[in-house]
């Protein structure tokens, strides 16, 4: 054997070219390209860019053109937000941007979902690599490409992009794109984010980047096929048009610049903007202390069953390098939808910086470009082509929080800060996804914008704001429920009322979440689903002695028609989950609680589905909270007097809420002494606490302790190496339940003589 291999003849250059051509010509499938998908850095500077920068590099010219292009992107953004039919468009789950000829996002709209800014370059690079020189496709003036398959880029398959190449005198100078969270995509559940998906084949429409526009016209034959593939055919058409026209408006602004300043000025501006941002990010990182910070965030379900899924994060800063190491996070689930492609994780980490750390930087791909990310292959944060990822939000949001928590510990000591040190913001989309046939006979599938009402984390000098903004879009809106109700057959009977005692205490408390109670009214074919973690374990960590949020379940009241109650006995209705569930005011009704992964469920008229948005994390020792602020929280219905007195050790008059400051100070001093008395020195504590393996009573996924190379797979006895993928199947929750019940029947001797 040795003889043969050493004697084998190396192919000549000519032969290599021939072999490559043969392989290219006979490629049977152009799947997602790992070379594109695993890379988030800027493409190398091209000769054309180099020449353009030699011609134009004056900072004032660059700034002027950048502002013009930025204004063009914002104009496109406004168009999509105002004219888009998808609820996501109306509430700002949108972005527009201008990409370099090589496909990097140089300038993005100021508003909207910035995660897209780190993710839409992948499909453009796919088009450049595969379609540009393909005689059956090609890239020409007037073309437009559509894309939604997240394995080729972007977050999840609800998001659709329209991508246009921009030419000047026959030469490609840049690209423009517009992306919207459209919702419906024909998956097994309505709304586009099925938690029931057990393989990519359950996830609906899968558009790798392809041409859908020629001569600036949408091709009707392909459009009709797409409309047949989703539950909202009219929305599909309307929003494709809206995105196309937004791109054309940005194109118009670019052409104005090309006419006044020439193509070199545009190309130089796009390139220098990215290179300057990248260099500035390196400079800012170098100001951080050299340190390694460790944290982990827990997902407490796959949305199908409760279990413990670890997102493990080690963040290291050395000199001007910043390295996120997510090795040790849970293995991917072969048949659960909470996995993410690694680009999605990176996009969300980019949000930490663009929205929460350096919001002053021009928005684009460059801000995250120099930051490094390490993951295990086939893990929940870097899943394979064959793993479903329609609920990737679960992993990218908890990944975001791990990043946000770790970054805060670097920022505290930095003399130069661009924002305040910030405890983690709530990170779950606690909202109702809905679908069915409306009171107007329309087939619909989408969600309430309440997902955008996440409570903010507290900061170094103030409380977190309530129901402020989603972690993925700090400038999105929670929408007008009353407008929504004109289109859909349900009411939010209680909406935007703060959920009392669902708190994240601290010196500065987290911003709180609000209650939502929905009930279907005018349709027999209408249902809801919810997709969130955090009914058993909070999905956050607190900061510097502050606490995380509590947990948030789904509550149902069935076998009742609350519309009849409201009509006939309105005094029976209660306006909080607390009172409805504890008092059970409707005779004959059934009351139940559930985790937040409710698969799509048809609802009957007047049944109540009730959830709450979550609180951001608290900051600092709660005994330092200003007693006056504690009383204000009581007055505002955020916390009950008993809980406030017990936790914050504030002494006040029950009737007047007047504070006894001396008694408060004494109670707090006493509590500090009590802490010391009930606590144990670290070395002694870990002797009793530390265990070598995860507890047997939990289905645990991910590494345990310092050994990040061993990943547990649901049991202390089943593991894989981090770098060695293994399938990881979950049993259907109904089969688990059936097995439990059969075991009880067997134990009771009640299985009879059933044949096996």
């Amino acid at each position, binding site marked *: 054997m040795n003889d043969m291999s050493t004697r084998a003849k190396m192919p000549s250059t000519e032969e290599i070219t021939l072999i490559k051509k043969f392989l290219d010509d006979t490629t049977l499938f152009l799947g997602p390209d790992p070379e594109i998908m695993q890379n988030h850095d800027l493409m190398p500077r091209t000769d054309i860019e180099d020449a353009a920068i030699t011609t134009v590099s004056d900072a004032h010219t660059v700034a002027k053109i950048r502002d013009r292009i930025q204004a063009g992107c914002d104009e496109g953004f406004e168009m999509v937000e105002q004219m888009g039919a998808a609820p996501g468009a109306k509430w700002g789950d949108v972005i527009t941007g201008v990409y370099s000829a090589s496909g990097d996002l140089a300038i993005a709209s100021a508003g909207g979902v910035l995660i897209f800014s780190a993710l839409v370059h992948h499909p453009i690079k796919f088009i450049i690599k595969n379609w540009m020189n393909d005689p059956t496709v090609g890239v020409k003036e007037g073309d437009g490409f559509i894309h939604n398959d997240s394995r080729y880029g972007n977050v999840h398959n609800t998001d659709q992009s329209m991508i246009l190449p921009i030419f000047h005198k026959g030469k490609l100078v840049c690209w423009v794109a517009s992306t919207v969270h459209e919702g419906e995509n024909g998956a097994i559940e309505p709304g586009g984010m099925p938690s029931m998906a057990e393989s990519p084949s359950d996830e609906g429409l899968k558009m790798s980047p392809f041409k859908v526009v020629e001569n600036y016209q949408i091709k009707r034959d392909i459009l009709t096929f797409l409309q047949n593939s989703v539950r909202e055919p009219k929305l599909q058409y309307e929003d494709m048009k809206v995105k196309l026209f937004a791109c054309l408006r940005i194109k118009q602004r670019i052409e104005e610049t090309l006419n006044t300043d020439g193509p070199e000025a545009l190309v130089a501006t796009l390139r220098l903007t990215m290179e300057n941002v990248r260099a500035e990010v390196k400079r800012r990182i170098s100001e951080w202390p050299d340190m390694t910070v460790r944290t982990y965030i827990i997902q407490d379900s796959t949305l199908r069953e409760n279990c413990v899924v670890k997102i493990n994060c080690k963040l290291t800063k050395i000199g001007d390098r910043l390295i996120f190491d997510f090795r040790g996070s849970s293995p991917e689930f072969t048949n659960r939808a909470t996995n993410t492609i690694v680009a999605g994780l990176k996009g969300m980490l980019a949000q930490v910086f663009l929205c929460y750390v350096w919001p002053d930087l021009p928005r684009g791909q460059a801000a995250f470009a120099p930051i490094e990310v390490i993951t295990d292959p086939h893990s929940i944060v870097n899943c394979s082509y064959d793993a479903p990822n329609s609920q990737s939000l679960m992993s990218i949001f908890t990944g975001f929080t791990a990043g946000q928590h770790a970054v805060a510990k670097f920022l505290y000591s930095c003399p130069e800060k661009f924002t305040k040190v910030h405890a983690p913001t709530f990170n779950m989309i606690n909202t109702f996804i809905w679908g069915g046939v409306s009171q107007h006979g329309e087939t619909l599938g989408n969600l309430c914008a309440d997902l955008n009402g996440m409570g903010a984390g507290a900061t170094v000098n103030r409380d977190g704001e309530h129901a402020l903004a989603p972690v993925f879009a700090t400038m999105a809106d929670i929408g007008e429920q009353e407008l929504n109700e004109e289109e859909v057959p349900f009411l939010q009977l209680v909406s935007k009322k703060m959920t009392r005692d669902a708190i994240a205490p601290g010196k500065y408390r987290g911003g709180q979440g609000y209650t939502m109670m929905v009930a279907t009214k005018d349709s027999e074919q209408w249902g809801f689903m919810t997709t969130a973690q955090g009914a058993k374990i909070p999905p956050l960590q607190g900061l510097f002695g502050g606490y995380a949020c509590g947990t948030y379940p789904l509550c149902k009241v069935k076998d009742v028609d609350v519309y009849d109650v409201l009509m006939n006995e309105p005094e029976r209705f209660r306006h909080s989950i607390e009172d409805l569930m504890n008092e059970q005011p409707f005779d004959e009704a059934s009351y139940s609680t559930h985790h937040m992964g409710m698969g799509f469920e048809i609802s009957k008229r007047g049944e109540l589905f009730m959830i709450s948005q979550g609180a951001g994390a608290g900051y600092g020792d709660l005994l330092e909270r200003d007693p006056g602020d504690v009383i204000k929280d009581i007055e505002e219905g955020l916390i009950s007097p008993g809980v406030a007195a017990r936790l914050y050790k504030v002494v006040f008059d029950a009737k007047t809420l007047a504070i006894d400051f001396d008694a408060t100070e004494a109670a707090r001093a006493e509590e500090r002494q009590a802490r010391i008395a009930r606590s144990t020195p670290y070395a002694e504590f870990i002797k009793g606490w530390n265990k070598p393996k*995860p507890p047997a009573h*939990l289905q645990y996924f991910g590494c345990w302790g310092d050994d990040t190379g061993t990943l547990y797979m649901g049991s202390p006895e089943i593991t894989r190496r981090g770098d060695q993928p293994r399938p990881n199947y979950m049993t259907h929750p109904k089969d688990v339940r059936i097995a439990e019940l059969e075991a009880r029947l067997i134990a009771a001797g009640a299985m009879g003589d059933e044949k096996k």
Partner: protein
Amino acid sequence: MKVPMTEYLRIDLDTEKWECRVCDHVIAPAEGNYKEGLLVHNRNPRDIHPPIIDPEKYRFTFSPDPDWVRILEFCCPSCGTQVETEYAIPGHPPLWDMQVDVAALKAQWAARGPSAVPDAGPVVMPDRGHGH
């Protein structure tokens, strides 16, 4: 020079120690895990996040499941200030959350000088911490 690293912790660059910013207690060597110099309490999460709906009636109550997660509360052994919390799976070893390169920190601050030290911090009351 003393560099504040968190709301309640600083590093004395000369002695190379973690210190409490509230009571000046010397906690641990700066190159090590500051948690080793603190006290720990295994807190039932139900104490902090009380059930909003009746735990006798319902499986999910708005309160974390104490069999699934605990809150490790770390406090200063001298003044009792709660320096950090960690929501932990039962038995999971506490994290070494801030592993500082002390030599690099000293070099960084030697270049900056003490006037660059940020002034935010805890509410330090005059008669607290040393009174026992």
